[in-house]
């Protein structure tokens, strides 16, 4: 690579991918930026399709300026980078990323890779969660931001994490009827970590504002609840839950948004050869990397929530840090002052994030005791009971559970159901969830259209024949 600038591929054009690209361009390196969405911004700053008129303030609330800055940053780079929206990387092998874009399959060779793959909804299944009308929190947001519609009327939001209150706010603000906000965490969990939360400064203040806002708007907020079931004949009609004293409640609704924060999207990191380690707080296997996002081996860098969930502000910082690490590793002089400032900022955010995760913990344990008949893997319709029964050959391990029961074998390849299935298997075996391992990543990481794949192969054969 010496002499030439490295060929850098950035996967993802959210806050992390955008800031990574910006930092590289500032140092004379023009990356390829691939993004699954039609417009940059990622999930958190998702932009409405062209022609939609809702203003940024209505779409992003307090974060409007940040969202607009991230959008503008990528828009400003368009002339200087190779930006490929609507394009999915479905495999990485041997220094080549295989992509599916509007023009079919493309192979993108790279010297260095920045993975800014973001996060997806973390789901804990419960009886009835597959009924029409039940959405994830992210799905609820997409409906609002990209389609300009609500998931039901009235709607209930249930789960925990900052997104719970943010989405409730966004819905109410857009004119939807929000019947309740049901939070599985309770205040007593926040008290011990209050000092950590205070480090969040403005972020914490905004979070508190979102959390208290529903009450001032007359929307009931219940904390310390336990989900019981989503009910309905052909579609959602009501949600049932227990309050913190164990009393039963039922709320009529046609839309239910559920979510427990988000989980990192790590499949591409695994295919790119990253070592994976179990993170006890996230209860997830994450690619191992240093503080700047440098993976342990190979020229792979991780940025944003794909490297462990820390939120949009951290994603911008980590995007810059990953780019700076890459530049340093390839012998391009980079701004050391910027690196020091970004590291310090990241440390502050991470302390706050840690406190936040503890204040609003994901109730992973809930999956362990789900009734046998609860569907866990919705692609293959595999129940909790089947996962518990399917472990007749010890040691019980996730890939074996998949082989025996089909859990995680469908369209989502375990991205949705994997964490809950691991909890159920671990509980059945009486061990920690890290001991049941993880579903091995395998290409394609998302469904791949056969026609597009076949066309790419035919072209190659034609080319080979013409040489």
């Amino acid at each position, binding site marked *: 690579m010496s002499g030439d600038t490295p060929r850098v591929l950035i996967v993802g054009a959210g806050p992390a991918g955008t800031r990574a690209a910006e930092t590289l361009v500032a140092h004379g390196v023009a990356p390829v930026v691939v993004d699954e969405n039609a417009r940059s911004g990622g999930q958190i700053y998702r932009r409405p399709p062209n022609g939609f008129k809702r203003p940024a303030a209505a779409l992003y609330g307090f974060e409007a300026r940040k969202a607009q800055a991230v959008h503008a940053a990528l828009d400003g780079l368009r002339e200087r980078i190779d930006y490929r929206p609507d394009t999915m990387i479905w*495999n990485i*092998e041997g220094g080549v990323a*295989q992509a599916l874009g509007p023009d079919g*399959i493309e192979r993108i060779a790279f010297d260095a890779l920045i993975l800014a793959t973001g996060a997806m909804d973390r789901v804990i299944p419960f009886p009835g969660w597959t009924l029409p009308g039940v959405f994830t929190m992210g799905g609820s947001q997409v409906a609002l931001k990209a389609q300009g519609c609500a998931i039901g009327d009235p709607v209930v939001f249930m789960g925990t994490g900052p997104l719970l209150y943010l989405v409730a706010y966004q819905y109410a603000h857009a004119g939807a009827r929000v019947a309740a906000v049901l939070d599985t965490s309770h205040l007593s969990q926040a008290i011990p970590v209050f000092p950590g939360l205070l480090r969040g400064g403005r972020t914490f203040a905004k979070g508190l504002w979102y959390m208290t806002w529903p009450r001032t708007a007359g929307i009931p907020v219940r904390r310390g609840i336990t989900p019981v079931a989503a009910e309905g004949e052909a579609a959602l009609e009501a949600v049932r839950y227990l309050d913190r004293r164990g009393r039963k409640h039922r709320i009529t609704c046609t839309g239910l948004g559920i979510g427990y924060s988000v989980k990192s999207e790590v499949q591409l990191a695994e295919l790119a050869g990253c070592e994976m380690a179990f993170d006890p707080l996230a209860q997830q296997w994450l690619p191992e990397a240093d503080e700047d996002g440098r993976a342990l081996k190979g020229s792979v860098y991780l940025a944003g929530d794909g490297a462990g969930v820390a939120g949009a502000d951290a994603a911008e910082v980590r995007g810059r840090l990953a780019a700076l690490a890459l530049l340093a590793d390839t012998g391009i002089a980079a701004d050391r002052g910027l690196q020091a400032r970004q590291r310090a900022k990241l440390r502050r955010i991470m302390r706050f994030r840690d406190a936040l995760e503890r204040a609003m913990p994901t109730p992973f344990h809930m999956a362990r005791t789900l009734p046998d008949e609860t569907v866990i893997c919705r692609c293959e319709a595999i129940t909790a009971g089947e996962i518990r029964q399917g472990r*007749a*050959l010890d*040691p019980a*391990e996730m890939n*074996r559970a998949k*082989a*025996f029961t089909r859990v995680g*074998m*469908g*369209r989502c*390849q375990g991205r949705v159901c994997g964490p809950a299935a691991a909890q159920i298997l671990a509980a059945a075996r009486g061990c920690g969830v890290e001991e049941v391992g993880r579903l091995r990543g*395998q*290409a*394609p990481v998302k*469904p*791949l*259209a*056969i*026609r597009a*794949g*076949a*066309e*790419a*192969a*035919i072209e*190659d*054969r034609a080319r080979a024949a013409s040489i």
Partner: protein
Amino acid sequence: MSELRTDVVIVGGGLVGCAAALRLRERGASVAVVEKNQLGAAASGVNFGGVRRNGRKLAELPIAARALKVWRRLPELVGSDCEYAITGNIKVARNEADLEQIAAHAEAQGEHGVEVQMLGRNALRDRYPWLGESAVGAAYCASDGQANPRLVGPAFARAARAAGAELIELDGAKHVARDGGGFVVETESGRTLRGGALINSSGAWGARLAARFGERVEIWPMEPQMIVTEPAPYFMVPVLAVVGGDVYARQIPRGNVIFGGRSGTADLDVGFAKVDAEESLTTLARTIDIIPRIADLSVIRFWSGVEGCTPDHLPVLCPSRTTPGLVHAFGFSGHGFCLGPASGAVAAELALDGRTETPIEGFDIGRFSEA
């Protein structure tokens, strides 16, 4: 660590090894199986899943006939049908030369008692309107079928364990040697197993074990690469294979189409196969020529596994020529799933009796050193 002494020690806990263990227990012999990976998880667990005699080499037909009897008894034998279904099998030709070749083979098979029916272009179209224009004719074998490979090996393992076999997994055989009149096996974790007889059912690694007893077989890894689609309406009952082997496909009643043709890569020292996605794209192209309607589906996963291939693509299934009490059952060259249940039983008989009723001419390890 404690020492385990059994009548027979089996190195390799795939379908063949586990079926051998079950048969040994049925015969009243004590047995221990040592498997470096998970039981039934290597080639036995990740193969295509075809159970066929159509197109099979004549030398394998007798053991395939015995295997078929075992396949039909799976529920009573291992407590599950492992999704085994008799769906028929069509071997499809894309040109007249291939068609003549399969017709000649069908006739020879008929002489061995395997009923195979030839279908011309029109009959093929009438029966299977989903076939593409490139199919000009086929050989159809109604008694063939398919099963779920992920279930079969483990089901034999479970049944063998329930019958009293000692099954050790995730612990490979490190040292294997003669020991007085029998054999001693030391595992990676330091266990010692002693047996009067030893069955080498270690698949792609079988040649390495044979070499320790002075028997040379050239074996190379093959890594058939599979593709599975999202579920689609059930349209394809028989298993399909194209002459030349570059397309084979089956659909399961829940809708997924499973198909393959090309290979991944493997390193026997690393121990597992790696998918080569570019090769799978080629398979996609070749498969839509044969089954055009899958073009509108999406692939949800590729996978591969390591199998051992011999120079003549026939297994090594015989008593050792150098070492009394040693039985070889490896190198199934992609045929081990269908033949596995019977091959395990044959290996068990060879270990106990030194002989079997099932004709296994053509599988002797000596065939590679003669010539």
